[in-house]
């Protein structure tokens, strides 16, 4: 699983924004903002890490248990997939 090319994650005044670039602007209508954990998950996926290792990293970085982190990650991935931001 990878993030589709042509998207840039950028922090603007404490808000993480997914910015489409090039032809993605035409196919991608709207703006996605992410919270801190969302941005963390995005970067993990962007770096090609396995979901289990990203979840482990989330539990180390934030005050959250593994089950909650896993559920959040699954939800995040399903939303990203729904929006067409992921490729296998």
């Amino acid at each position, binding site marked *: 699983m990878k993030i589709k090319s042509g998207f840039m994650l950028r922090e603007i005044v*404490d808000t993480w*924004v997914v910015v489409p*670039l*090039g032809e993605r602007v035409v196919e991608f209508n709207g*703006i996605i*903002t992410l919270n801190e954990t969302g941005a963390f998950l995005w970067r993990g996926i962007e770096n090609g890490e396995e979901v289990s290792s990203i979840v482990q990293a989330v539990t180390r970085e934030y005050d959250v248990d593994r089950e909650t982190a896993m559920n959040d990650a699954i939800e995040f991935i399903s939303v990203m997939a729904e929006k067409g931001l992921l490729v296998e």
Partner: protein
Amino acid sequence: MQKINIAGLRIGIIHNKPLLLDKFNPYTCLKQDHKEVDVYIKVKASKSIDIPKGELVLNDSFKWVKSKDESNSSSVYICREEPNDIAYLLNTNNEWNNAEIIYQENHFNAECAVTGPLVEILFRNSLIYNKGLVLHASAVQYEEKGIIFSAPSETGKTTQARLWCNNMGAVLINNDRPAVRIIDNIPYVYGTPWSGVSSECNNNVSKLEAIVMLEQSDENCISKLTKEEAIRKLMPRCFLPYYDEDIMKIALDNLENLLKSTQVYLLKCRPDIGAVQEVYKAIWRNNV
């Protein structure tokens, strides 16, 4: 060289004879203004224009080609009916401050080449390198405070700006594409020569006090937006360089600085004086 000053950027236009640029008259630099030019544009004619080499990053009514070499230069061009028949071509350096415009001499002229959309594109990108952005908005000045009204098309930007001009005596800065710049952490809003109607393109500048995002509603009500809400509403209204990641990063720095220095409101509004009163209360009475 003819010199114009748009949003504080001095643009020098070089051609083999002086051009009649009515559209830019209000922006003409005074003869005694000897300050250095920020953006150079050489204008020349050619019988035929070759397609620029590089990567085609935008293939629309405008075509944008980025060079693949170290220069990072860009070309933007407009074709006639056939895709290889270029009417106007802009070649620019990486910083968008040293450009040439070539026009096809049998069908077009230098005046149209300069007052047409290519110089507007050059200006927008050049402004990004000078801590600025162009917004899709209407802007007015009242009691030395600039207010920007922005929203998707047909929401009522012009209506709100006119209500301010007609009822409060505000001065219209621009009714479609004003520029903003953040200089020493202070935001300013500027008129530009680009709007639907020339009478709505005034060469005015004001300190920017607030950005008001509009939504049509049955009741007039104003509220402050959080930074996240402001980004979601304002970002799509900015002319951003989605086709160049490097300039995009600078543009987003500018957007961030704009949001840090300017309060953004949401005005749910009717097209009436009550909407003006809501904005007045919020900005001049701090009553939100």
